[in-house]
C-alpha cells in the first residue's frame, strides 16, 4: 500500500546504533536496532502517523527522514530524489523543504533569543526576506497566523506558556513554507486543555499550506484524530500499516489490537463493562530483540512458528498491511 504520488519514501530503512565498550580500545559488542527494516511512503498532502510505545523507533524514523541521522542501511527518498547519504551542502534544499516540530517546547527554543529573532532565523539561514523590515513583517504575519500576538515580538521564550511556545515552534517550522512537516509528539508535553488548540492549529495549517505531515505520537486517540494512514511500530519494525479508520475498527496485528484495548476511555460504563485483554510484560530490549516475530514473547496468539520465522508485512483482507502469521479476524474494537 504505497501512496500514488509520494513526497517521502523510505525503503528497508535501518538505524543500528553501535554499543561499544572500553575507553581507549573501543570494541563494538552489539547494536541497538532502533529501526530495523522499515518501508513506507507518504503521499503529498497526506497526514501519516507513526505510533508505538517508547523504544519502538518512531522518533528515530522521523529523524532519519529529516536526515538528522544517517541511516546504516536502506534508502530515504524525498521528492523523488535519494537523499540517504547526502552531505551537508547537498542537504541544504531539504533543510528548507522539510521542517520539524519537537516535543518539548521548553528545550527546543533558545532562551536567550527573542521570539521575533527565533522565528526570523529560517529567513536568515536560507537568505530570504533579506531586508530587515520585510523580515519583520513576515515574522509578524507568521505570529498572527499561529495565534500569537504579534506585539510580543520582542519577548523571550520564558515569558510564554507551554502552548504558546509550541505555537512559536510551529511558526518557525512553517516560515519557509516547507513541503513536509515532521511533528514529534507535538502535544504530549502540553496540558489537556491546550492540546486541542495545537491539534486544531496543525490541521488548519496543513489544509492552508498543503503540507505533508508526519505525525509521531504514542497517544492513539490523538493519532486517530489527526492521521489519514498510520504505521504501528514495535521494536524497530512496522507491524501494521493501514488507513486510520480501518486500523482502529479492524486491527489485524495482535499488537495493534492490544494497544487499542489498553487505551483508557473516559466513560465509566465502557470501562466497567468487560475488561480488556491486557498485554503481559514489557517491551524487550532493542539491542537483543526476540527471534522470529518480535512480538511473540508478549503475544496472546503466539505459536511455535512465531518464534522461528519472521512474518513479512503482507496484505490482509480489507487492504491493511500486517506482519503476522496469525492475524486477527473481523474483530471490532470500536463497537
Amino acid at each position, binding site marked *: 500500500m504505497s501512496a500514488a504520488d509520494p513526497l517521502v519514501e523510505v525503503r528497508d530503512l535501518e538505524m543500528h546504533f553501535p554499543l561499544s565498550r572500553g575507553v581507549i580500545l573501543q570494541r563494538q559488542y552489539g547494536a541497538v536496532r532502533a529501526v530495523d527494516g522499515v518501508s513506507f511512503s507518504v503521499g503529498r498532502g497526506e497526514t501519516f502517523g507513526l505510533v508505538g510505545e*517508547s523504544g519502538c523507533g518512531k522518533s528515530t524514523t522521523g529523524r532519519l527522514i529529516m536526515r538528522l541521522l544517517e541511516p546504516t542501511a536502506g534508502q530515504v527518498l524525498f521528492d523523488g530524489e535519494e537523499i540517504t547519504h547526502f552531505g551537508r551542502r547537498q542537504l541544504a534544499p531539504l533543510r528548507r523543504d522539510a521542517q520539524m516540530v519537537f516535543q518539548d517546547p521548553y528545550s527546543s527554543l533558545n532562551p536567550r533569543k527573542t521570539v521575533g529573532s527565533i522565528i526570523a532565523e529560517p529567513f536568515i539561514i536560507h537568505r530570504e526576506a533579506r531586508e530587515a523590515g520585510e523580515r519583520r513583517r513576515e515574522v509578524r504575519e507568521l505570529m498572527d497566523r499561529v495565534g500569537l500576538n504579534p506585539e510580543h515580538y520582542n519577548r523571550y521564550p520564558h515569558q510564554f506558556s507551554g502552548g504558546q511556545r509550541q505555537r512559536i515552534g510551529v511558526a518557525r517550522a512553517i516560515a519557509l513554507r516547507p513541503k513536509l512537516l515532521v511533528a514529534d509528539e507535538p502535544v504530549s508535553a502540553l496540558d489537556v486543555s491546550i492540546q486541542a488548540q495545537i491539534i486544531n492549529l496543525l490541521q488548519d495549517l496543513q489544509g492552508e499550506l498543503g503540507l505533508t505531515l508526519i505525525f509521531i505520537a504514542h497517544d492513539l486517540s490523538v493519532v486517530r484524530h489527526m492521521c489519514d494512514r498510520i504505521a504501528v511500530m514495535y521494536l524497530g519494525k512496522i507491524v501494521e500499516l493501514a488507513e486510520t479508520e480501518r486500523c482502529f475498527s479492524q486491527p489485524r496485528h495482535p499488537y495493534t489490537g492490544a494497544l487499542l484495548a489498553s487505551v483508557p476511555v473516559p466513560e465509566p*460504563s465502557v470501562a466497567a463493562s468487560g475488561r480488556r485483554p491486557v498485554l503481559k510484560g*514489557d517491551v524487550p530490549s532493542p539491542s537483543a530483540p526476540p527471534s522470529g516475530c518480535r512480538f511473540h514473547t508478549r503475544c496472546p496468539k503466539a505459536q511455535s512458528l512465531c518464534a522461528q520465522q519472521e512474518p513479512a508485512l503482507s496484505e490482509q483482507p480489507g487492504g491493511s498491511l500486517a506482519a503476522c502469521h496469525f492475524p486477527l479476524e473481523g474483530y471490532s474494537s470500536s463497537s
Partner: protein
Amino acid sequence: MSALLTVNDLKVSFNTDDGVVRAVDGISYSVEPGATLGIVGESGSGKTVGTMTIMGLTRAANTEISGQAIFDGEDLLRASEQQMRAIRGDEIAMIFQDPLASLHPFFTIGAQLVEAIRVHNDVSKAAARTRSAELLTMVGLSDPKQRLSSYPHQFSGGMRQRVMIAMALANEPRLLIADEPTTALDVTVQAQILELIAELQAQSGTAMIIITHDLGVVAEVADEIAVMYAGRIVEQGSATELFSSPQHPYTRALLDSIPRLDRDRSRALEPIAGRPPSLISPPSGCAFHPRCPLAFGRCPDELPALEPTAPGSQHLVACLLSSESRSAER
C-alpha cells in the same frame, strides 16, 4: 459507613518572592474505607499539593496551611512530625509518578523493601526479606528472590512501578495515595498497572486517592471524582454521574477537548480558549470565568460555592449558572 479521611476547607499557600501562591484554596472531601476518589486537574490546579499537605510533606517556613484533615479521628495537619512518620508508609502510603526518582539508586530493591517493612514493624531482617519476596510475587514480578538483589536501574519503568506498589502495600495501609501512577508509563504497561492496583485494592480493601490529569484513567478506577481548577474543587460526584452529565462548564470543556477512541473521528475538537490561570493573582470571582463560554455578568464578581446540583444530590458543582441554563446551552 464513616469516612476514613475527611478533609475540611484545606488551604495551602506558599510565600514566594513573586507573591503568595494559593495552591489550594479551600477544598473539602472525604474518602470511605475501600473506596476510590479520583482527583482530576491540569498542572497547577493544586491536585498534588493538597494530598502532599495531608501527608505532611509541604511543611516549610514559607507555607501556610489551614483547615482539617481528619484521619481516624486525628487531625493530620496538626500531628507532630514524629506522629506523621509513624503514619506515613504504614497507615497511609503513597505512589509517585516517577518510579526511578522514588527508588534509591544505590540500594537493592530488597534492601529498600526490607527497610520499608522494618521501619514500622519489629521483625527480623530475614522475616522482612521473606515478606518482601511475597510482595514482589503479589505485584506480578517473577523470580522474586533474585529480584531482591537487583538494583532499580536493572528494572524497566513498569517493573519499577510494580516495586513502588509493593513497597506502598508492604504494611497494608488503610489509605493509598497514587499521584499520577501511570503517567510515565506506556499504554500497554499502564493498563497492566491499573489492573494490578484495582486487583490489589479489591483484595485488601484499601481506600485510594488517585490523582491524574487523564480523564480516561479516572473513569476506569474511581468511584467518586473531584475536578480541580485553580486550587478549588469545581465539580464532584460519582464517576458515572460526572461523566454522563457533567455540570461545570470546565468539566464539559475538558471532555470536549480531548480526542476519544469511542467518538467519531471527524468531530472537530473544541479547545478551551486561553490558559490555566496564575495562582498568584487568580481571576476574581469564579477562576474559570475568563475561559468560560457561558460566563455572564455575575461570574467575575461572585465566588460560586460547591453546592448540590439538585436538593439532596451527591453531585456537587461550583457554578453560578442555574442547572437549567447550563443544560440549555449544551
